[in-house]
């Protein structure tokens, strides 16, 4: 607490907590939201636990670790709870690592695309005129491009792509969608009386965008982040499955690639099913999270009986 802090600013922080608590109590009531959160917590645990197996025994290393006694794909056993892949590597540790990668890719790409999309959307919407046209035509051009195909071409050009490169490019392809929505929201806010009041008070355009428009647009941004995460995870998985992922990273898509490439698709369900199910479930759970958050953020969507 610095000397500039006043009693008022302290109680404002308490207000934030109150709002969080209020938001949570509304969120709780949504069944989808509850399922989503539970699933996400499970996946988060998986990601955290991914560090454990290699510590227990080097043969559990997802990429390099090989069971000295096994050199083919085997089913679940006490040593390998989900079995081994074609090289004798533990599938469970690969799955856990995949969870970590999924979160990393999903959240990073989503964060970057939403950051870009929000900033661009706000500026385009508020400033309008030439800047708006310029930015939105740029967005249109990018939206029209098939993200996956372009990434495949780049992979073909540059050889293998690193995981961060993939993340960066996913963000680059996905910001236009966010910016359109944020721009629309900004347009509707632009003419609201409280914005005019800020103008009358002498606020500069920059101040209005960041102090007045942004806080009212951020809830929407957060919401879109959840949708972007699902999209990012799927793109990465598709790339890896097609063989254009980062060869040094063990992701679920990569696991599927190995199953396919080594011809074990119909022979090793214990290897094929876990990564596929995980991809589906994690995207589903982020989607459910987004839907439930929608209700928290937009009071109008709350079901009746929940009015305050």
């Amino acid at each position, binding site marked *: 607490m610095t000397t500039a802090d006043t009693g008022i600013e302290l109680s404002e922080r308490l207000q934030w907590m109150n709002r969080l608590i209020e938001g949570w109590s509304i969120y709780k009531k949504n069944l989808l939201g509850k399922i989503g959160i539970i699933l996400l917590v499970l996946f988060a645990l998986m990601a955290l636990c991914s560090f454990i197996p290699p510590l227990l025994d080097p043969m559990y290393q997802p990429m390099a670790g090989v069971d000295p006694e096994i050199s083919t794909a085997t089913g679940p056993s006490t040593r390998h709870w989900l079995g081994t892949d074609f090289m004798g590597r533990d599938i469970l540790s690969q799955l856990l690592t995949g969870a970590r990668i999924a979160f990393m890719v999903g959240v990073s790409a989503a964060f970057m695309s939403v950051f870009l999309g929000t900033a661009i959307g706000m500026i385009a919407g508020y400033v309008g005129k030439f800047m708006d046209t310029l930015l939105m035509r740029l967005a249109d051009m990018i939206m029209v491009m098939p993200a996956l195909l372009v990434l495949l071409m780049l992979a073909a050009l540059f050889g293998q792509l690193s995981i961060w490169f993939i993340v960066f490019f996913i963000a680059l392809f996905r910001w236009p969608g966010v910016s359109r929505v944020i721009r629309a929201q900004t347009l509707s806010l632009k003419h609201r009386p409280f914005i005019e009041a800020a103008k*009358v008070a002498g606020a500069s355009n920059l101040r209005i965008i960041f102090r007045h428009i942004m806080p009212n647009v951020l809830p929407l941004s957060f919401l879109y982040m959840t949708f972007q995460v699902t999209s990012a995870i799927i793109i990465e998985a598709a790339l890896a499955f097609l063989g254009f992922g980062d060869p040094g990273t063990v992701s679920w898509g990569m696991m599927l690639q190995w199953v396919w490439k080594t011809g074990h698709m119909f022979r090793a369900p214990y290897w094929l099913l876990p990564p596929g199910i995980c991809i589906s479930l994690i995207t589903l759970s982020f989607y459910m999270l987004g839907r439930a958050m929608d209700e928290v953020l937009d009071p109008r969507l709350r079901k009746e009986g929940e009015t305050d």
Partner: protein
Amino acid sequence: MEHVEETILEFDGIVKKYKTRAFLFGARGQDVVALNEINIKITRGEIFGLVGESGSGKTTAGRLIVRLEEPERGKIYLDGNEITGLKGKISKDYSRKVQMIFQDPYQSLNPQLSVYDTISEPLIIHKIGNGKARENVVLQTMKSVGLSPPHDFAHRFPHQLSGGQRQRIAIARAMVLNPEFVVADEPTSMLDASMSAQIFNILLDMRKQFNVTILFITHSLAAARYLCERIAVMYRGNLMETGPADDVLKNPKHPYTQALIDALPKFGNSRDVNRYDTLLRSERVPSEHIGCPFFLRCSCADQIKCSHEKPPLMRLGDSHSVACFYAEP
């Protein structure tokens, strides 16, 4: 209250037009004249009422004063200085002197900002004082609009407060810079009677405490009578009648003002006979006419003169002016 008869704000030949867009396959977009050659002089320290129905241009006039819009023609003067077309630093300085209270208390406050943040914002924008000094000013202003004790309200958010309380916040925000001139755009039209009464009294109080000049925009003649020393009645972008409030409302000279007074519901007494009866039951067929804006609905209009000549504002008596050829003093 003694104050020198000094003009603080002046409208000189103000014209404001809006372009309407063509509706699908309908007529091409036409210009809507929101303000048609308006001339007003407002005295320092008074509460001046701008009265009219929707479409009269009263809100537009208010918006021109706070520079949310610019007029097509004409000039506006504050303290003798021209303010139309100001840019940059001078424009920002202007906002310290002229502020606005908006109509809708549910929309004119940022829902994400606390009460304290909303009211301290103008001070931050103009870099007035440091944290502690600012806090004092904000709390003092909150007290003066009746948000007492201030600490109870400071960290609340608009959605937790009633319409009347929100409007007080809007007034505090407008007054925190100690402006010279405040435009109050129908500040009570969305409030109940009791809250409206509170707001009226607060405005009177503000004028007394801060000696601020207020332009009170309203559609309610009774509210104008209660608050204002002088009023101007507007119709379709034109001034119809101006003068001391009591005078204009007790002895209205313009047929439109008379029609407005006739239209008011009468408490308890079911008088069905209109006092002035200046309104036609159905409008005249419109034709291209450049005469009096009220011609189409006026029952005492002259077919030739009123439809071809636009009556200027003519002084009738003690600062009471009317835009009508047939008004009698």
